[in-house]
């Protein structure tokens, strides 16, 4: 078994003259969560389809669980679970029959199928409504059922496209907890397409940021923050005069200063000794309550990386 659940090298896909994915090279270690971030039409769905062998690449190579996506797509799909852009639930059928169908597809013996259906539906709080046609359910309940279906056959690799979309905050938090447990205790690898940066920051050991088919950022969340984000100093207090703010803004290593109610945010070029800045503020009569040094958030990193590429290429809508 390879150390990487997913290993792509210059993976590319064109649709006629349109480049949907260009030279994607990533390695996703077994038993980790990889977050794939990008705006709509960036190529996330195309990537997922390529990795599941639903589309053929026009260039490059990729191995998923050690199988070539072009030659052994059937083997890949056998070992993977997927919750795609649309939940794929049969709304005329009951929850029980939806899971029964996929249990049969995965060739799970009848007795194990029944036990697994009961286990999953009970865990998700859906057991009492198992006989109802799913079409009558809320979006969140359908999403939970789709998650149960993706996990039904205990896959080694899980492809999730916006799994918490439509879930209430409590259900989304529970799902994130379940995913963490799945990775920690069962060694499942997760490939997660998401717009939810907080979710990515919490769950993912590695993140890829894609824009117009190109990977513009790749690494652990802290790596990305270090590489793409700038440090900042957040000072909470009162009596920040315009003169002292101008003075701080002109100091070496300070990029800009923002005032927001009782907070002063000083954006720095790099990590510098900030004690003289605090002394300057206090000396000018500012009342300082709290000082915090921080890195940029993943959201800021994401926006920085995306905006750098913003004007270069128009996005391709792969949906």
């Amino acid at each position, binding site marked *: 078994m390879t150390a990487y659940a997913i290993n792509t090298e210059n993976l590319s896909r064109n649709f006629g003259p349109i480049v949907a994915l260009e030279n994607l090279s990533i390695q996703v270690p077994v038993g980790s969560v990889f977050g794939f971030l990008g705006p709509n039409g960036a190529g996330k769905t195309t990537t997922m389809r390529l990795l599941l062998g*639903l*589309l053929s690449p026009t260039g490059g190579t990729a191995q998923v669980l050690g199988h070539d996506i072009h030659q052994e797509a059937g083997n890949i799909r056998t070992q993977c679970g997927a919750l795609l852009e649309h939940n794929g639930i*049969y709304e005329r059928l009951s929850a029980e029959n939806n899971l029964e*169908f996929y249990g049969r*597809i995965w060739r799970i013996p009848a007795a194990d199928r029944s036990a697994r259906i009961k286990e999953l539906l009970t865990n998700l709080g859906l057991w009492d409504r198992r006989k109802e046609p799913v079409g009558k359910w809320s979006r969140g309940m359908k999403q939970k059922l789709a998650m149960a279906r993706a996990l039904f056959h205990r896959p080694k690799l899980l492809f999730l496209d916006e799994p918490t979309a439509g879930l209430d905050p409590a259900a989304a938090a529970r799902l994130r907890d379940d995913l963490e447990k799945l990775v920690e205790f069962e060694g499942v690898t997760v490939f997660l397409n998401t717009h939810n940066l907080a979710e990515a920051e919490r769950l993912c050991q590695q993140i890829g940021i894609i824009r117009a088919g190109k990977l513009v950022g790749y690494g652990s969340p802290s790596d990305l923050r270090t590489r793409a984000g700038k440090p900042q100093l957040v000072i909470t207090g009162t009596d920040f005069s315009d003169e002292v703010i101008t003075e701080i803004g002109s100091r070496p290593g300070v990029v800009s200063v923002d005032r927001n109610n009782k907070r002063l945010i000083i954006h720095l070029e790099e990590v510098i000794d900030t004690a003289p800045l605090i002394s300057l503020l206090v000396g000018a009569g500012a009342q300082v309550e709290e000082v915090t040094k921080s890195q940029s958030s993943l959201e800021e990193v994401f926006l920085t990386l995306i905006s750098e590429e913003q004007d270069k290429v128009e996005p391709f809508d792969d949906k």
Partner: protein
Amino acid sequence: MISDITTIIWKESREFISMRPGLRGGWTGLLIILAVFGILIPLQSGIDWLSASTTVLMWAWLPFILVNSVVADSFAGERERHTLETLLASRLSDKAILVGKICSAIVYGWGITLIGILVALVTVNISNWSGKFLFFPPLIGLAILFLSFLVAWLAAGLGVMVSLRASSVRQAQQTLSVAFLVLFIPLLLLPLLPEEYRGTVQGALIGIDIQMGIITAIIVLVILDLILLGMVFQRFKRDHLILARD
């Protein structure tokens, strides 16, 4: 492969049933078809119904309508309801999905036709009971069995081709209705022809050796069915399906 096909048939059968929840949901239509073809027409025709060549035509025509009513929902519907991509992301092969869906539509259309034939036989026997069970002459019986099956297959093949190109179930059903009219309208128009033309056509039809006619029809249908099957196998590929309009 066989177990995958039966899995698809299992799912499709449940979807067919759930398409028609209760009497008002569509079972009424099915019961009317069975009442007309299985009771009313055999009662009116009497014992002649068993040996009439129109009986063959009638039972060969019925599965076309029945298969048409489900095949668009099975193929275009799966895409319209956004369940196709998840199904394609499973371990099932393209062939298993395709064959399973075609078999489901044929089993439905041909199965109901066979039930109708049984009901009709019972009706004829009850209304003309002579102490022994009346059955079709062997040639007519075999022709009904083979032709109804081959027409169900033809309808399924056409249904798949149309559904793969249609953007919605509704569009697929409309196109299939037109195909139905094109194929069967000559039969419906026959009684409306001026008498001299009608006489000529009827004379030509009567002149046909029934046995030869049936064999020719079977051969033509087998060829058409095989061509269509080849075409749908060619088109039903994951790449095509994923990139088709959704």
